């Protein structure tokens, strides 16, 4: 099959006695949209933070974009974009200033950056709001902006942690159009969500329950395997086994 861009084996994270992520192994291929599903507290965010070089694994190995997640975190960071669950751009900077800041951080040349900023603003129809303070934007827009910031430097992989949390259905739809367009350009998308309808948009999905990966395949194969009408049912079958509550 296509070449592997993320490869993880036996990845574990323990906080004291609590095993947040329990020996998970999987591969993600270049250019696919990889859905990382699970209930709240299943360990999705913790796993993702390890892949992004924000957190050291307790055990296990993995590579992201060809770099080791334990020792080459800083090299990984050159090649990825990350959008956190919680909106984490600067409220007191304008839309344009935020994009330019992150473009600059990734070392984009001035000319290249201003072209890219224009292109992104255009794509999101943000042009007339480019000088608005981020604090004045509605949540849906903030999320789109956060996505743009995560992709400003055209990274190989983008990690999205519940990007559509708390967003209305229309904006969610638009958001997924953005994701698909980005994937079509060859960027690998690694996305966590607990909206099961969104799972259908993914090329492949993994289901996490209590820190372990319980299923991993394309949405259609999973439906077949669990004899379900939709992903919702797949999820219920798996989640019923869960011990952990939040």
């Amino acid at each position, binding site marked *: 099959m296509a070449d592997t861009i993320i490869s993880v084996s036996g990845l574990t994270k323990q906080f004291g006695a609590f095993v947040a992520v329990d020996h998970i192994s999987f591969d993600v291929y270049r250019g696919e949209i990889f859905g990382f599903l699970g209930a709240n507290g299943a360990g999705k965010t913790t796993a993702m933070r390890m892949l*992004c*070089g*924000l*957190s*050291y694994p307790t055990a296990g190995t993995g590579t992201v974009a060809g770099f080791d997640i334990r020792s080459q*975190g*800083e*090299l990984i*960071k*050159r090649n*990825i974009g*990350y959008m*956190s669950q*919680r*909106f*984490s*751009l*600067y*409220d*007191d*900077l304008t839309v344009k*200033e935020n994009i*330019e*800041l*992150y473009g*600059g*951080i*990734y*070392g984009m040349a001035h000319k290249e950056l201003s072209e890219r900023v224009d292109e992104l603003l255009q794509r999101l129809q943000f042009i007339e709001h480019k000088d608005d*303070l981020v604090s004045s934007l509605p949540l849906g827009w903030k999320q789109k902006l956060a996505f743009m*910031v995560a992709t400003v430097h055209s990274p190989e992989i983008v*990690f999205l942690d519940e990007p559509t949390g708390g967003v209305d259905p229309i904006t969610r739809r638009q958001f997924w159009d953005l994701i698909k367009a980005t994937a079509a350009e060859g960027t690998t998308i690694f996305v966590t969500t607990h909206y099961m309808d969104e799972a259908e948009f993914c090329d492949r999905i993994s289901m996490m329950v209590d820190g372990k990966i319980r299923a991993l395949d394309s949405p259609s194969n999973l439906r077949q395997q669990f004899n379900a009408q939709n992903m919702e049912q797949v999820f219920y079958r798996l989640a019923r086994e869960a011990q952990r509550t939040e």
Partner: protein
Amino acid sequence: MSTVLPILIKKELTQFRRNKALPRLLVMLPIMLVLIMPLVTQMDVKNISVVWLDQDRSSLSMRMKSHLANSDYFMMQPFAGDYEMALHQLDMGNTDLIVSVPPHFERDLQGGHANSILLVANAVNATKGAQGLQYATQTIASAIIELAQERGLETDTVSLITIENRYNPTGNYRYYMLPALMIILLLLTCCFLPLLNIMTEKEHGTIEQINVTPVGRLEFMLAKLIPYWIIALVLLGFAMLLAWAVYGLVPDGRAGVIFLAAFLFSLCMSGFAVTLANISDTMQQAIFVMFFFVMMFMLMSGLLTPIDSMPRWAQTVTYVFPPRYVINVLRSVYLKGTLLRELWFDITMLAILAVAFNTLATITYKKQN
């Protein structure tokens, strides 16, 4: 390195500019410290209230009384009663000092075997008690000596000691406190601003977005700190101008030495603030601990009370307090015109502490945990 740093600094400056409270506060702070605080920081005790008990009623005792009454320090309190009643007044806190002249003091003094004049001070406030006694003793002594000289008497009690005050001949305590207030200004800015800045980023999660980028630890720290170094030096310059305009105080030595020390001091304190921010979980924690240190720095570095009067062990502790060095430099240069080469020890210590604190800051900042 060279390309990212200006971008990050620009971001910090933009955020600073957009902040509603901060820039205003930073203008208010030096004004408050330089204009108002010098009025407060006076050690001289005045208006010591005195109960005068005179059992002698001689020309000498009258002279003593008028000397006391004419002094700025004392306020003669109308009182009729005996010593016991006076003591009761003292205990109630209604008076600060009792002067009791024994009967036939003047006569006995000439005979060479006088009973002592009794001075009793309420020393609950140690400073006030001690100074009150000291001034009163001096005043009474001068009255005795004056009388003796007028009468052409040979007095063994008088000896020829002259006192020469250098560097601050008018004895203006404000001149001594102004450099300390400038240091307090630097201390508050460099300790609290970077701490608040980083803790805000931590609590809002914005620091995590930075942590997933390839920005180096050093660059990130520098970008946080450089704006505050600049702000601190600008504020110092502003405070120095105010001190000149309002109190006519100008450095006797080179202003360059002051700025060198102040810059090293800003490095120390901001490095310290970043370290504390890195190891704190919440803003509340960070703030509380910082208050603790700022109080220690203010009260134990010779800013407000002399280091020499602290016990040995406490003096040893202060060797790691950057304010102790910078205050010495500022006071020496301001008042005594001390030269850079005479201050090498303080400057070197500041430099060492600056390196130490900033190394700590960079080590404790973890992008991955």
